[in-house]
């Protein structure tokens, strides 16, 4: 189109000079010095206090270090850039503080789970069930095999219900494009805000209303989970279907395909990985929910495989039932099963990330 002017930076000393110097990036000595002093002084003061006094570390950090760091950074900001530097430093220090706070909480949660969970985890803990096990039984016996099976069964049931409906909802929004699209979107969003305990209560009312025909169990638990899973699947699938190029649809229609066939053969396959991500995110959304299962699925120490076979345990409810018991072994079981639950969630999380990364043009 046009001739490209090529030049070698080596041959242009002026340009080379300019790139190296960058006068606007130049920081005066005063700046560097005040930054260093501002970060060292509070640290030294707190370290000195920590070793000389008996104030606990956590209190030192929040009551002494953080305010001291704020003041020091404020002074440094003032020294380098005048009054406007103060607020900048305050923002930087507090935002780093907020980040550290969140990370400390997260590391504490995951770290304590790993440390205490692994202590009680063993091979038989994964596959044995809890029959003949009382809270005081030593850890050599019993396990959460029944609860893991229960979780898998309940999640499968809910996925079988929520995934087709969720994808159909997304298809309605992006493919059929009927007049009710804004309303459907609104209802799906409203549904995503339903608290998990309310989903459980809703199923419970049905159980109570049918009076024995429909019982607590895996199927009821799956229904409660499906209520929570549906909006996640629908919203994610909608986002993915929107990414399918319009040309594919018009192309298929132009070749004489029917609307339904276009969706089955062109649109959904084109969005396959995204749909899988939607399903995984839906499962990850529900797998740790406890309240709906307490109300709808009940509790059992036995291995139950029949969806209608009465009360069934799942990993979250197992954790819930063992947390506050006054027996160390029961509490150890709670930690171990919570670790199992976190590992399940982590697998889903990583799977969604990996698949999502493979998808082109996805920013999330």
């Amino acid at each position, binding site marked *: 189109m046009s001739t490209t002017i090529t030049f070698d930076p080596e041959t242009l000393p002026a340009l080379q000079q300019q790139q190296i110097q960058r006068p606007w990036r130049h920081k005066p000595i005063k700046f560097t010095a005040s930054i260093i002093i501002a970060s060292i002084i509070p640290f030294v003061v707190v370290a000195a206090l920590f070793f000389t006094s008996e104030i606990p570390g*956590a209190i030192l950090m929040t009551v002494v270090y953080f305010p001291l760091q704020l003041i020091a950074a404020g002074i440094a900001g003032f020294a380098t850039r005048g009054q*406007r530097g103060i607020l*900048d430093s*305050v923002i*930087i220090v*507090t*935002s*780093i503080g*907020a*980040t550290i*706070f*969140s*990370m400390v909480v*997260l590391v504490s*949660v995951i770290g304590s*789970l790993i440390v205490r969970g692994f202590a009680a985890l063993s091979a038989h803990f994964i596959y044995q069930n809890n029959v003949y096990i009382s809270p005081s039984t030593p850890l050599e016996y019993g396990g959460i095999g029944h609860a893991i099976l229960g979780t898998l069964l309940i999640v499968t049931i809910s996925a079988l219900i929520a995934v*087709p409906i969720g994808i*159909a*909802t997304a*298809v309605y929004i992006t*493919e*059929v*494009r009927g007049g*009710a699209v804004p*309303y*459907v979107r609104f*209802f799906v*969003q*409203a*549904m995503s*805000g*339903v608290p*998990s*305990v*309310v989903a459980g*209560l*809703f199923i*419970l*009312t049905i159980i109570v*209303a049918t009076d024995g025909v429909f019982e607590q169990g895996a199927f009821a638990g799956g229904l409660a989970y499906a*209520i929570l899973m*549906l909006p996640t699947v*629908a919203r994610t699938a909608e986002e993915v279907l929107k990414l399918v190029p319009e040309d594919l649809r018009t192309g298929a*229609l132009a070749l004489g395909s*029917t*609307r339904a*066939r276009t*969706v089955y053969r062109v649109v959904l396959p084109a969005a396959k990985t995204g749909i899988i991500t939607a399903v995984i995110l839906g499962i990850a959304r529900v797998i*740790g929910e*406890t*309240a709906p299962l*307490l*109300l709808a699925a009940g509790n059992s120490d036995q291995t139950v495989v029949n969806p209608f076979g009465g009360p069934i345990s799942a990993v*979250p409810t197992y954790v*819930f039932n063992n*947390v*506050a018991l006054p027996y160390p072994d029961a509490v150890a079981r709670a930690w171990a099963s*919570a670790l199992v639950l976190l590992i399940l*969630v982590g697998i889903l*999380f990583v799977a969604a990330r990996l698949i999502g990364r493979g998808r082109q043009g996805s920013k999330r």
Partner: protein
Amino acid sequence: MSTTDAEARRDLQAAATSNRGDRVFNRVVTAAAFSALVVLAGIAIFLGLQTITAFQSQGLSFITTTAWDINTDPPTAGILGMLYGSVLLAVIALFIAVPASILLSIFMVFIAPTRLATFLTNVIDLMAAIPSVILGLWAFYILNPTAEEWQRLLNQYLGWIPIFENTSGNFLGTPFIAGFVLAIMMIPIVTSVTREVLARTPPDLVNAGEALGCSLWTMLRFVALPYGRGGIVGGVMLGLGRALGETIAVFFVLKIVFEVNWYMIIESGGGSIATLIVSRFGEVSGEFELSLLLAAGFFLFVMTLVVNVIANLIVARTGRLQQ
């Protein structure tokens, strides 16, 4: 909306209804799309019907008084303490989570190097995925002793402020601990919305501000935060909806008492409507008490629905404005 758009849609619809298979397909998909409405209506009707029993036996005092004596004759029940308690916990959680989340997203968008910001985004998403029962377990064993010590200190040095009063000497099961746990659940939700909103600040505006000599603070104050205000408020409301409905994490760290704890946030005992349901359900005395719990669930449903609808409207509106 141009006319070609409308025409294209009409053509598509004409094509869609010209074939019998497509008509069936359309109906099935439309029916599925309305399942969300059916479920919402089902919840509202089924739980709403239960409030009739509650109101018939208790009258309006069901939501204006505090009591839970089911086995007396006549039984008295009032959930004011629970309704108010849910709001109090949410307010405490907001006080902790909102500044933390906004600062966290400012750090991720404007301060941290790209790689650290990406890492933090992933970590925050992971934080959102932690099940509430795990947070409850952690709070019960790890947070409780620490929080007890901190609250004791707060009471010792700032006890003259009414909200830090504590008359019982028991610092466990306080609204503050429960609110703190809720804040931990809210931070990832609020942060992810806030971060996205702030990241969408037009670079032109940011650059123009810097060219005019804005410092970081003035840029935030006059460009980024006003630009993202709607989205941030929406994100906070989404987090609030989650906090109001949270059950299990609160169950382990809050001592449920039926009297209203108006303001003493580090006094043992408080209320939460979601937690009331789970804690009473295990030892429910009969059909009457169950229907009272279901009625309480109805109020929880209405509360969270209103908060969520407002949040989604705000988020949707700002999203459209920014496109």
